[in-house]
């Protein structure tokens, strides 16, 4: 089983020192994600979901522990290697979409390919075909402010896919969306998983569990079993 692990996290700690107080955002987490799996991290607010996602994505450095993705040790990489890793292997989706507000949908989707040195014509062709797939053919030239939240998130998904990544990291992708738009995004993620991509989603949304091949429950920076998780949630009301 460990042979096919695409992501392997061991003994991961992220500790923030706030004055004389210690915040353990991640308190010794170990995980293995299979290639082509749909992984959902559930947990209450402040449990460390985003922190875990960002560390796997190489957007931050752990206090200690190891992160291995596709055989590469992320926590040992320098900034250039991390940039290359994100450029080639990763697609990020955020709760707040994080589109560049001055750019059209098309330009936003094509943006990552600028940093990989892809020629303009090729970039735009790829962006347009992804937006078509997301049902946004008519919205190619629209700025983010001219799009609904659901449409913006589909633009963001297109952008995450433009470099054909093997790992998709999504931080509450449905958090700002209504039920229908949320479902569309979840269906899209399922489709991507079926194409062989590995998915890691952090969410509050229990509906996401229906799509998951693997669920991870976090409380106070620690992984817990589903039963313990449910118990804790109920106790907290």
């Amino acid at each position, binding site marked *: 089983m460990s042979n096919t692990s695409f992501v392997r996290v061991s003994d991961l700690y992220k500790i923030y020192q706030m004055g004389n107080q210690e915040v353990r955002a991640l308190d010794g987490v170990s995980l293995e994600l299979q290639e082509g799996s749909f992984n959902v991290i559930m947990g209450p607010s402040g449990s460390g979901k985003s922190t875990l996602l960002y560390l796997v994505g190489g*957007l931050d450095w752990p206090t200690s522990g190891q992160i291995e993705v596709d055989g590469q040790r992320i926590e040992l990489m320098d900034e250039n290697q991390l940039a290359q890793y994100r450029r080639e292997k990763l697609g*990020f989706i955020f709760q707040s979409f994080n589109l*560049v507000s001055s750019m059209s949908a098309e330009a936003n989707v094509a943006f990552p390919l600028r940093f*990989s040195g892809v020629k303009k014509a090729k970039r735009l062709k790829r962006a347009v075909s992804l937006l078509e797939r997301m049902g946004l053919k008519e919205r190619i030239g629209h700025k983010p402010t001219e799009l609904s939240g659901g449409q913006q998130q589909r633009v963001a998904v297109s952008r995450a896919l433009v*470099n054909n990544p093997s790992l998709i990291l999504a931080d509450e992708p449905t958090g700002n969306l209504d039920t229908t738009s949320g479902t569309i995004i979840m269906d899209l993620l399922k489709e991507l998983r079926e194409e062989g991509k590995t998915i890691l989603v952090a969410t509050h949304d229990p509906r996401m569990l229906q799509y998951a091949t693997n669920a991870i429950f976090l409380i106070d920076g620690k992984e817990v079993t589903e039963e313990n998780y449910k118990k804790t949630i109920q106790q907290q009301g």
Partner: protein
Amino acid sequence: MRFSDLISLIIDNLGRRKGRVLLTAIGVVIGTAAVVTLVSLGAGLQKSATSNLWGINDLSSIQVSPGYPKYEPGMSFNEADIKKITPAVIEQFKGMKGVKQVIIKDNIRGGSLLKYGKMEGWGNFNSVSVPDIKDLGIEAAQGVTVVEKGQVILGSQYKNNFYDPNQKPGKEPEQLPDLFGKTIDVQFIKWDNEGNQTIRRAKLEVVGILKESRSEHDWSMYINNDEMLKVNEWIAGKRIDFSKEGYNNVVVQAISPDVVVELAKQITELGFQAYTPQEAVEGINSFFAIMQIVFGGVGAIALLVAAIGIANTMTMAILERTREIGIMKAIGATNNNILAIFLGEAAGIGFLGGIGGVLLGWAICAVVNALGSSLLASGGGGGAGTQLNAIIPLWLPIFSVAFATVVGLISGLFPSLNAATMVPVDALKYE
């Protein structure tokens, strides 16, 4: 990232904040315009100062005269001690490295009286050994600069040389007409040892009037060199042997102003007196070089203030776009990419401001020049005053735009480095 993509991204980014870019660039525009205007004014003042002081702009000429021994008390004057400029010496000068030509100047050795109508004047006759007196660096305002026998070329101030000997008090003085093309009567005068004077009459046709040069040429009259020799031999009453007497006044012309000082030194070492405006001009040049540096410095201070403006704008822009920086990092931008983008924007503001500043500076110089020449025109056209004139040296616009760009680059450096080295997750979480 491709360079062309980088440039287009920078242009897009500047384009979406037009208002702020414009306001920031205005600081650079003013600074650059100040540099361009002040340096150009400095260059203009320098030019007019040098040309005022040395009527002729001919910096490649050396005036050579015979060398006299240093006088010491009790020393008896000995003709043999005079270092004379004989034809052999002329040949020696001609053989020196860097000499273009040697012009022998001569003048009348007796008296002369000019007459035109009722008006009389004194002659101040000169001649040169070359056919065209243009070689001295002077030009004709009317007519020619080549003078044949029976002809004369007058300096620009010739009218001041004439007067009416029968002028009655209270009567309007007679005006001398323009003598160009007219013929004047000349009396060459010599005296013998008893003081008896003999007169030799000649008629000279005025074939040229010289342009004003604010030098001794304005008061000179040029006749043909052979005619001069004849008159002088008549005055001396014998043939003149220049290999014994030497010439009084010789102009050694160098191929370029660069070698003049060195040539003058060599001639002085041979025992002759050599005078060149070069040394003085060099002194003036270095004075104006300092003035230009001071002027440029004032402009540079203005640019420095503009630089602070750019730094401020970039810092603000980077704060506002912190999230965007996080996004760019998340989608694979390297620190160098981010650095290049923000540095490029800062340099772009400097570049645009620089171009605007050069245009504004150029416009100011044009206005200054227009005002300067209209003031001059209303001043009666005497032209002897210092002309307020801005000259934009060719290197200045290029240098100014480059300098403004570098100013932008430097002021953007610190904010851009900050942007580039942000931790991605912090940038993404920034509200």
